[in-house]
């Protein structure tokens, strides 16, 4: 029994090496996929519903662009041109986001240079980086699925009836930041990890593949599943936003729960439970 008992609650070996390894590979891969993905998005910063992009009709749900400032008095010769306004049009509603979206660093670019790889406009390199880490993501998903099936971790992230009945209590506990350090994941943890691992990440891969004209020829049914190539591209973006939200909440929860204990468990595997918790309860 690899459990060391102390006055502060038992220290347990909670995360096996495969869980920790895949966690950190994903952390790096998803970060680089995000920044290279924003570079790719910047090449045509608009999202549509359907098979095609409406140029002579309107099926856009999101357009990020730049407009010149409203015409004012003429600038004297030799003055730099007036800065433009960065705009975001979401479902027809126009917002200004100069400095962040549409216009930043003195140029028209949907996402700012600090949010893209490379920092300047370079679609070719963005695609090389994105497709490399897309393979890393897929390989890591398969590795995690295989290892977790064999070592039993898979059962730990799939919510069961017992978990779902505890949902309202768990939401109340989280809302009051009354966190429990247990051997088992709480139901909110299970639901979010399950959602990311079985819905968002596979969904990312499938909507990404759906943007491939070669894959469309091999599996035209997938286009119908997602409602067309441009809808798939829009969903790819929406899933990205959801993943970013997940990561933000995930990091926030680790900070709130005590970053040293949480980091130790995902680096070394060892996790300190609340005093009195049963180290063997699964």
């Amino acid at each position, binding site marked *: 029994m690899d459990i060391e008992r102390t006055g502060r609650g038992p220290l347990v070996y909670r995360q096996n090496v495969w869980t920790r390894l895949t966690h950190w590979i994903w952390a790096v891969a998803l970060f680089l996929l995000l920044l290279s993905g924003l570079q790719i998005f910047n090449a045509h910063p608009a999202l549509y519903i359907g098979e095609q992009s409406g140029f002579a*009709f309107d099926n856009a749900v999101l357009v990020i662009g730049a407009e010149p400032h409203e015409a004012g008095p003429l600038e004297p010769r030799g003055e730099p041109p007036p800065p433009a306004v960065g705009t975001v049009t979401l479902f027809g509603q126009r917002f200004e986001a100069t400095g962040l979206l549409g216009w930043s660093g003195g140029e028209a670019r949907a996402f700012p240079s600090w949010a893209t790889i490379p920092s300047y406009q*370079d679609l070719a390199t963005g695609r090389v980086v994105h497709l490399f880490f897309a393979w890393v993501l897929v390989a890591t998903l398969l590795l995690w699925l295989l290892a977790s099936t064999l070592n039993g971790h898979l059962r730990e992230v799939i919510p069961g009836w017992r978990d779902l009945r505890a949902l309202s209590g768990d939401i109340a506990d989280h809302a009051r930041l009354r966190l429990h350090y247990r051997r088992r994941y709480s139901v909110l943890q299970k639901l979010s990890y399950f959602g990311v691992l079985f819905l968002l990440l596979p969904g990312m891969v499938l909507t990404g593949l759906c943007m491939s004209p070669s894959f469309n020829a091999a599996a035209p049914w997938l286009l119908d599943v997602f409602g067309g190539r441009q809808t798939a591209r829009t969903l790819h973006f929406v899933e990205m936003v959801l993943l970013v939200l997940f990561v933000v909440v995930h990091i926030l929860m680790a900070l*709130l729960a005590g970053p040293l204990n949480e980091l130790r468990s995902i680096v070394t595997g060892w996790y300190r439970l609340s005093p009195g918790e049963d180290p063997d309860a699964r």
Partner: protein
Amino acid sequence: MPADPIRRRLLLAAPALLLSGCKVFDRLPRDGGLRDVLESANTLTDLTLGNLADGHLAPEYTRADIRQPMRPNGVTSPPDEDYLRHLASGWADWRLTVEGAVERPLALSLPELMARPSRTQITRHDCVEGWSCIAEWTGVPLSRLLSEAGLRPEARFVVFRCMDTIERGLSGNVLYWESLALRDALHPQTILAYGINGGALPVPNGAPLRLRVERQLGYKMPKYLRGIEVVADLPGQGGYWEERGYDWYAGI
């Protein structure tokens, strides 16, 4: 929540360090070690997608899906004298040449191309930038011309030469060019299109003749064609955009 200011500063510094670390991708030389490693995944992508798509047709759409004129991209009005002369004379002296590793080189006029059996397909054009546009394309299957010319045993690739200058450089003007593997060149939907949406191909879309390769992205479909060369070995990186960092197999 850690109140310790040093720890908080470290936590705040971490994202900034991560972001500045990404500048490593700002200097990815075209043939550098890191770029080679990253591009090795392209080989995997190309093999996977190429084999998955092998023997399949790209999705075809209906007339109801044609909702707008075909969006032109890249060069939309070639400035080249030769091109403008051909355009002014209604393509009277223009010939498409088929040469290289073939038994019988061809030089075909536009009426000669149009007299051959044609294929019409309503397909979706996907630009590498991310947008898509559906149009109806009419043209002569490339496989038909290649079989007329007769491929020699060493034939492995088809190179397309164009009339449009896409870049003016110090070492001269660069004309657009592309290339395909025989597998894609002989695909039934690979056509040399002279018609679009029931009319003649207009200048912005590549008059008089452009390539359609429906299972790949737009940059694989050169416009303003003048010649086809069948070769055993791919010259350079295989195309204008390929020499600027884009993957030769544009399947995704």
